[in-house]
């Protein structure tokens, strides 16, 4: 069907432009470092630690989004209620908040002198410069991705299936676990991956809350600004490869 009419030409042009626009810089990134550079980089414990921390914290963020976001996504998919539009807009807010502002806002809540900060401190929870703080930031930036994907997934499961399950004797939760969840599973997984992917990429909010321990994007930034391209690229490539591999694995394992 792709013939040489103006419509198809427009499609071909715009499609390839966008794909090239996304792929060219990344390919350039990936191709440039030499294999010895790559090997040396991954032997650097600081790099391994940063990539590990990135995976761990964004994974935690995704798990939190999964646990907290699933019921909310379900209700947004199933019910019409007053203020639903507002709730949906609030869920999307983290996407538009400038990243440094996210870090600043979370830090200013958690400090001594603020009631919430005092409560947290009393509970022994510290956000500044801690893994906890990183997870909180990453959850903040990642949660809209999970909720939106999960909502779309639940919307595709017909409410009638749950209704029938109820008339067959299932309680509300039982119907959810035995019918809705298995059917929406792939969307929830995709949402988790998107949430984790978004979290792994975050820099501006993290660098304010926690410079140390260093997540990979902070390490990459530091290496770039302090030493230049040559020392930051291999780290970036490793992070991208490791996370792509992980996402692929997740999809395959759960397929």
């Amino acid at each position, binding site marked *: 069907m792709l013939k040489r009419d103006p419509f198809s030409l427009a499609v071909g042009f715009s499609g390839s432009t966008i794909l090239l626009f996304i792929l060219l810089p990344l390919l350039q990134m990936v191709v440039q470092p030499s294999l010895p550079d790559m090997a040396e980089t991954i032997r*650097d414990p*600081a790099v391994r630690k940063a990539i590990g921390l990135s995976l761990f914290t964004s994974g935690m963020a995704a798990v939190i989004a999964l646990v907290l976001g699933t019921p909310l996504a379900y209700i947004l998919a199933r019910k019409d209620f007053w203020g639903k539009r507002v709730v949906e807009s609030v869920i999307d807010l983290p996407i538009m908040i400038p990243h440094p502002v996210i870090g*600043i806002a979370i*830090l*200013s809540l*958690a*400090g*001594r*002198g*603020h009631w919430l*900060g005092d409560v947290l401190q009393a509970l022994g929870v510290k*956000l*500044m*410069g*801690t893994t906890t703080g990183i997870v909180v930031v990453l959850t903040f930036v990642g949660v809209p991705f999970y909720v939106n994907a999960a909502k779309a997934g639940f919307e595709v499961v017909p409410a009638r299936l749950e209704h029938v399950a109820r008339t067959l004797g299932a309680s509300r939760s039982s119907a959810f676990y035995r019918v809705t969840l298995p059917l929406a599973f792939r969307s929830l997984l995709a949402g988790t991956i998107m949430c984790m992917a978004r979290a792994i990429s975050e820099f501006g909010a993290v660098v304010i809350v*926690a*410079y*140390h*321990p260093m997540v990979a994007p902070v390490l990459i930034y*530091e*290496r*770039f*600004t*302090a*030493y*230049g*391209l040559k*020392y930051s690229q291999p780290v970036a490539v490793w992070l991208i490869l490791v996370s792509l591999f992980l996402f692929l694995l997740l999809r395959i394992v759960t397929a």
Partner: protein
Amino acid sequence: EPSGDVIIFHAGSLTVPFAKMEKEFEAAHPEVDILREGGGSTKMARMISDVGKTADIMASADYQVIDKSLIPDFASWNVRFASNQLVLCYTDKSQYADEITADNWYEILQRDGVVWGHSDPNLDPCGYRSLMVLQLAEKFHDKPGLYDRLIANRPEENVRPKSVELVSLLKTGNMDYAWEYRSVAVQHDLQFVTLDDHINLGNYKFDPFYKQAKVEVSGEEPGETMFRTGKSITYGITMTDDAPNPEAATAFLEYLFSKEGGLKVLKELGQPPFVPARVPSQKMYDILPTSLQDKVVVKQ
């Protein structure tokens, strides 16, 4: 009449005075737009030397950074224009704020739950100078092992890339104490503990004592290291050899080195300027832009 953009990289601790200078200078030269980027001095110098970013002017919190990183490949001269000293900053919210004095600060910093920090010694002179202060305190107060005990109570996450960032952490209650330059403490209305001249790195007369402090910092590339030796705090500034806008950059430096201009601003904001500014040798004096020569003297 100078015009165009002037890109200035400067130490984070110079942010407030340089912001004021930018305002005054741009008012006098409406055709010029000063574009400042502040950060740890070491890092800013490396952005020129290693990353290849361009800047017209680089002002460092340690004149040695310019000597080591930029001269001779990226710059030719280095004018010393101000000094400073290190102080321990805190706020009303800080734990034990009502107890701390010049005599017990190192005990308080060892207490459980006290959160204190400094900037990254690898990126920011204020960072390695903070560590030097701790080493000198060990010697001055004759408390062997003090340095290690203090560092043991300062987890790595309390280290930030540039010293002024710590101000926000103090003010939001996320940190109790932070090492800053005195000028920064004054500029941000912080309370601070003033230390003895033996350890505050503010008096060049104590350079022999300061010399006992040695801090290991990262080198040219990740993994390499080198040592920084204690010395009184001296700020340096230079114009890069391939500055895109040397005319306007020179005009700004003229303003900065003038008694009624930049040096006055520094003084007002709590930082002791060298009046007049100095270069260490006649050879360097000779290669200065001629319009700067009458504002600078040769002094070791």
